[in-house]
């Protein structure tokens, strides 16, 4: 066990009935880096996120966060230890306002939390919509709101499940800038993303899943030319 790792996933396996969604998967994440997690549809990317954040229970293997076992903890305990996430299918609180969506998860309640929430909304240009029900926002705006909701939790490790999908081009650059900024703030980020340009541009290192198995890992340039990866995406 290396203490310098922020997250270590070891031989993780998850089965749903007869389907093995994640198969003996191991990852080691160093702090203050941006990682990409890619793979064809159904390769187990979201399941891996769910296992790390406690929304699914592993069948075998272990997950360590900063050296401590977290598999078996409840999702809220894992979140409070410092792992935040967004969802592939947006999970905002539709009948709360945009501002309330952030205040509800803030760890403190006073004026400081409110200022931080307004600051985050302004950052994704949602400040004028702060009193609007989140359910009335556009898809892209909801995606950004979900992103800021993770930030107000101030986690050390942030798992983003397709953060760019549906976000318009002008805001996309801001979003990518923000994700890079997280690294500067000392955060570790893992991104699941189908837009290869986005994920290749952001990530320092990629993990590739196929049928629940990690088939490759390495810097973007190496992954792009990896035979097994090309095969997984395009077939033989």
């Amino acid at each position, binding site marked *: 066990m290396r203490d310098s790792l922020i997250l270590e996933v070891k031989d993780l396996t998850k089965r749903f009935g007869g389907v093995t969604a994640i198969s003996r998967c191991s990852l080691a994440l160093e702090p203050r880096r941006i990682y990409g997690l890619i793979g064809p549809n159904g390769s187990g990317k979201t399941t891996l996120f769910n296992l790390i*954040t406690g*929304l699914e229970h592993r069948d075998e293997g272990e997950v360590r966060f900063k050296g401590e076992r977290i598999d078996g903890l*409840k*999702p*809220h305990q894992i*979140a*409070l230890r410092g792992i*935040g*996430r967004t*969802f592939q299918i947006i*999970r*905002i*609180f*539709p*009948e*709360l306002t945009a501002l*309330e969506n952030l*205040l*509800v*998860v*803030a*760890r403190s*309640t006073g004026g400081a939390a409110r200022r931080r929430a307004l600051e985050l909304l302004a950052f994704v240009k949602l400040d004028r919509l702060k*009193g609007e*029900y989140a359910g009335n926002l556009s898809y892209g705006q909801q995606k950004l709101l979900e992103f800021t*909701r*993770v930030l107000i*939790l101030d986690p050390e490790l942030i798992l983003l499940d397709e953060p760019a999908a549906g976000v318009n081009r002008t805001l996309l650059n801001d979003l990518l800038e923000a994700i890079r900024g997280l690294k500067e703030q000392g955060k570790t980020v893992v991104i699941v993303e189908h837009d290869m340009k986005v994920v290749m541009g952001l990530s320092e290192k990629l993990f590739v899943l196929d049928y629940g198995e990690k088939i490759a890992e390495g810097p973007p340039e190496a992954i792009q030319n990896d035979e097994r990866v090309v095969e997984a995406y395009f077939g033989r």
Partner: protein
Amino acid sequence: MKPLTWGIGLLVLAALAIMPFFVTSYIVSFTIQTFMWVALAGSWNLISGFTGYVSFGHVAFFGTGAYTGALLISKAGWPWLPAGLAGSVTAAALALLIGYPCLRLKGPYFAIAMLGLNEVVRALISYFEDFTGGGSGISLPPILSIEPVYYAMGLSAVSVTLLTYVIITSQFGLRLLSIREDEIAAEAMGINTARLKLYAFLLSAVFPGIVGGFYAWYASHIEPLGTFPLLTTITMIIMCLFGGKGTVWGPVLGAVLLSVFQELVWARFLFVHQALFGALIVAVVLLLPKGILGVLQERYRLPRAI
């Protein structure tokens, strides 16, 4: 709340406080019942309107409080006021006992479990005949004046409404709403949903227990069938939905309007009033699923706490 809202509220309270001196005892009785409904619908709102966990057995807390009050008065010789208040303790204890396992159930399963709870409590009370009087119930001495009950019920209704206001303007309240909106997301964002649901459930049982205790004294007689009817739970639900769930004034508005409606219809169409009430339920669910205040809120961007 704006100063104007506070002002109107205080005026209404003052009017209600002096009302018993100027009106017939029929009106006082009617208002006592309405206060009771405000407290019950408001309490149901705390668990079901806020967290979305629909309790179909809330009358169990009312009935538990009623039996607690009646037993303390008849067997232990307690005065009615502390006996009624003690109903909150047994109701909350029951909520703790049943809430811990049942709040893990989602959606309709929780609703069904609560329905079962009510039947179990009623059956137990009927069974322990020596203690509870079984099917024939408990008779209490007739009350000589209803005004004290009027104020006790009135204060209960006001307390539930104030409690709702305090909760809705707090982060605790927002977190309860987030459970209703998306429990998995709330969990993933560090919110301990299991604990918060239990707190809300306990709070939602306290006042039904108290007004149940007061009701036993007011009615002078309670028996299992009349104390645990499913219709009472359904009435709480409809009042809350009609006025607007998850708001402060929704349950108050719903309880007042439907109490008046029931009273008028009952007086005029004795034989069809149940049918008319049923038709109203269908109409509310179909036409006003968010309730009066829910619709106004959406249209005029009103805060939840108005």
